[in-house]
């Protein structure tokens, strides 16, 4: 086997493996180096297996409300081991799918840990092979797609202890569901695990340092979501600074400070979900002088680093830490390398949280738009008056649209409610195509669907709402 490639991708997550496929499609001889499992965190420890868990949780929780639908069932129960097994099975199936795709596209998968060394032109890639030994790959272009991991703060105990304190990783495969759980951090990851364990009946308390949950979302959406989650029995401490988390013999103890008042919480387990750190270590980046800023590789518009021939995409290149952002950047990067990149389209990146209810958004929040000095027109439409939502019993939630008043451009859309993660793409598409309110109003939304609330939220921004 030759060790010379056109492109070597380091990391086979959704950024890396998609980049490799695109590289191969462009006729580039491509290898991908993976130290763990094809599909990366997304497929194995993130997006996908959590969706499997959440589905189990949702179905189980729905069984508790069957009476709402005129149904009943005897003996609602779950087998936690099987819930976890299903989730692992889903991950395994998809990882095997990636292996198939690599083979189909004639991409060489090198199992091992990569380290960059000074090469001629682009750095060369020394791989400590899983099977033993090392192999050095050379390439015209090397693309870092090493992803990220949970941020930990060991000084105050916000770090996994191998037993009671978890990151997303441990939280995905415990032996049993904890009776009580503390979740530190109310971003998408924290809220999803909180939602899942709550669905199975755990007593869950979420601690957020900022004044509101889901802090990257629009404030109104955070608000509606908070109320909905509280209804499900989740507890929250916002504006609360964790000063210490410690495991005890029977559980965990967490000390927090809210408005100068100290409080102590106890639970069986805790999940640390306070953020993400790029995987920039042990790759030989320092020796090459690769510019790194706050745990992420600094890149230009096409993923290029300050080192010739070295690129970085996805989580390792900075937020938002989302699989679809990584894939998007990877494809653009490799098309740039091949010289076939199309015009650079500033596409907004949607973000989704798959709790019950779901949250999805794209573009600017109302506050961000105002901070940017824009005059905005804002529309809102609640699901509680949407026919399909009422029929489905999913009336919790809101659609909010933000338009630039001067131009009529849609600049943000924010949703909380049932299946909104499947609907946000409509707004994302509108923004990428630079639609104004005129096209959105002229678009026909099928009846009855929950998506009609999107249309109404557009109409509402211009005083034309129909069903309010």
């Amino acid at each position, binding site marked *: 086997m030759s060790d010379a490639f056109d492109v070597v991708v380091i990391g086979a997550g959704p950024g890396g493996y998609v980049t490799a496929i695109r590289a191969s499609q462009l006729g580039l001889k491509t290898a991908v180096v993976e130290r763990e499992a094809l599909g990366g965190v997304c497929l194995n420890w993130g997006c996908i297996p959590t969706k499997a868990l959440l589905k189990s949780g949702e179905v189980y929780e729905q069984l508790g409300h069957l009476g709402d639908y005129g149904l009943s069932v005897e003996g609602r129960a779950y087998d936690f081991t099987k819930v976890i097994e299903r989730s692992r099975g889903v991950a395994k199936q998809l990882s095997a799918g990636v292996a198939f795709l690599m083979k189909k596209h004639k991409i060489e998968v090198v199992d091992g840990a990569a380290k960059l060394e000074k090469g001629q032109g682009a750095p060369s890639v020394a791989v400590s092979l899983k099977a033993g030994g090392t192999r050095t790959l050379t390439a015209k272009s090397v693309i870092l797609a090493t992803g990220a991991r949970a941020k930990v703060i060991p000084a105050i105990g916000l770090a996994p202890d191998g037993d009671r304190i978890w990151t997303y990783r441990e939280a995905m495969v415990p032996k049993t569901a904890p009776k009580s759980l503390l979740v530190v951090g109310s971003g998408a990851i924290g809220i999803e695990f909180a939602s899942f364990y709550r669905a199975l009946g755990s007593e869950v308390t979420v601690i957020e340092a900022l004044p509101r949950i889901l802090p990257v979302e629009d404030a109104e959406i955070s608000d509606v979501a908070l109320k909905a989650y509280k209804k499900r029995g989740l507890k929250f401490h916002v504006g609360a600074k964790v000063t210490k988390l410690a495991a005890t013999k029977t559980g965990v103890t967490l000390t927090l400070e809210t408005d100068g008042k100290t409080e102590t919480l106890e639970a069986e387990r805790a999940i640390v979900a306070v953020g993400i750190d790029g995987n920039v270590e042990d790759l030989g980046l320092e020796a090459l002088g690769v510019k790194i800023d706050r745990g992420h590789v600094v890149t230009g518009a096409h993923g290029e680093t300050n080192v010739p021939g070295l690129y970085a995409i996805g989580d390792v290149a900075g937020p938002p830490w989302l699989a679809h952002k990584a894939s998007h950047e990877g494809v653009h990067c490799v098309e740039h390398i091949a010289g076939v990149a*199309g*015009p*650079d*389209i*500033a596409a907004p990146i949607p973000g989704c949280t798959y709790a019950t209810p779901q949250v999805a958004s794209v573009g600017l929040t109302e506050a961000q738009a105002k901070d940017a000095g824009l005059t905005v027109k804002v529309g809102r439409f609640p699901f509680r008056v949407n026919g399909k939502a009422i029929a489905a019993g999913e009336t919790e939630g809101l659609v909010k649209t933000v338009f630039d008043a*001067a*131009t*009529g*451009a849609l600049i943000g859309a924010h949703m909380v409610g049932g299946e909104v993660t499947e609907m946000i793409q409509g707004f994302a598409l509108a923004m990428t*195509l*630079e*639609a*104004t309110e*005129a*096209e959105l109003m002229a678009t026909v939304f099928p009846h009855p669907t929950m998506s009609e609330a999107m249309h109404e939220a557009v109409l509402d921004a211009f005083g034309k709402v129909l069903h309010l």
Partner: protein
Amino acid sequence: MTDVLMPALSPTMEEGVLAKWLVKVGDTVKSGDVIAEIETDKATMEVEAVDEGVVEALLVAEGTEGVKVNAPIARLSGEGGAAAPPQPAAKTAPTASAPTAEPEKVAPPQSEAVPAAPVRAVTEGASRIAASPLARRLAAQKGIDLATVKGSGPHGRVIRRDLDAAAGAPASAMPTAASAGAAPARQVLSLEQMGIAPGSYDLTPLDMMRKVVARRMTESFRDVPHFPLSIDIEIDTLLTARVAINAALEASGVKVSVNDLVIKAAAMALKAVPDANASYSPEGIARHHHADVAVAVAIDGGLITPIIRSAETKGVSAIAVEMKDLAARARARKLKPEEFQGGTFSVSNLGMFGIKSFASIINEPQGAILSVGAGEKRPVARGDVLAIATVMSVTLTCDHRVVDGAIGARWLQVFKGMIDNPVIMLA
């Protein structure tokens, strides 16, 4: 049978001059054949057939002015597979908007109610402009002609950032912006009312170029607070340098003119005094990143100002080659819009006519224009001794809203320094 309609060569074009027919009745045309030339503001554009057939009738005579967009201009008999869907009756074609059953007999002459009548793709041909809905709206708001904006989106689609760029560097957009919101042309008395006897003159109808020149110069002279600054420059050193440069370039066949050197010196001076390379706009003063020097070229029937882009970065031989090409194509009226729209500064040279000095009218939105007179031997005082030197007078007309007297004077000093001692241009 298919009607050939007057194409819209830009989204804001409402009418044009049918300058020339290139086919006659009985000719067979096929898709892509050039059948006519249409004159718009500054360029003559070719009209290509989109259908096949035999020319049955030319409905509009050569030289007809004010032919409305979408008016039928010729009729093709559909041969074989032309298969163009039947047109609505020619009478209704120009205003396809109203669903009235009663066809309007003729569109009222002033009817501008339907600025961009929905045009069927087949007749629209190459003139269709891909633009996002937001880009279209921004263009309308800012009065920018989409045809003048280069699209950076997929397949050249004009998207928001292109409009932002066009607005940020108002140069390219301004000509049409001016036309969109222009004050009505000054109503003048007829020549007869002013005492010119009928029959004592020949009248040449105003072509598009003449109309545009008239309108833009009137607006600029009336609305831009302008003032001239003049200075005399000895050019003997420059002329010696030119001889040396041309000797060095002899093998390549390139000849550098005094005007090419003036362009280069002007660009370098703009780089040195960026305040003079600026445009006034209500949003603020735009300081241009490059010296895009527009050079007035007299052509048959008017003038046009092709642009040497980023002239500060180009060598004089490159400028000479480019200028020669631009001037030749300007005279043939073959310049593309982006080649004559969007300069940041202008140079007008009437030295070859022996003009000693003059003050040009500012080419909006540029901040200044340099008028170059003839280089001629003049007596000069060196201390108390009278000597003879080749002297050239130049005048900088400045837009006082952006280029104040001191800025203009400083620019002229730097420019004079470059001409006095051309070696400085290499610095």
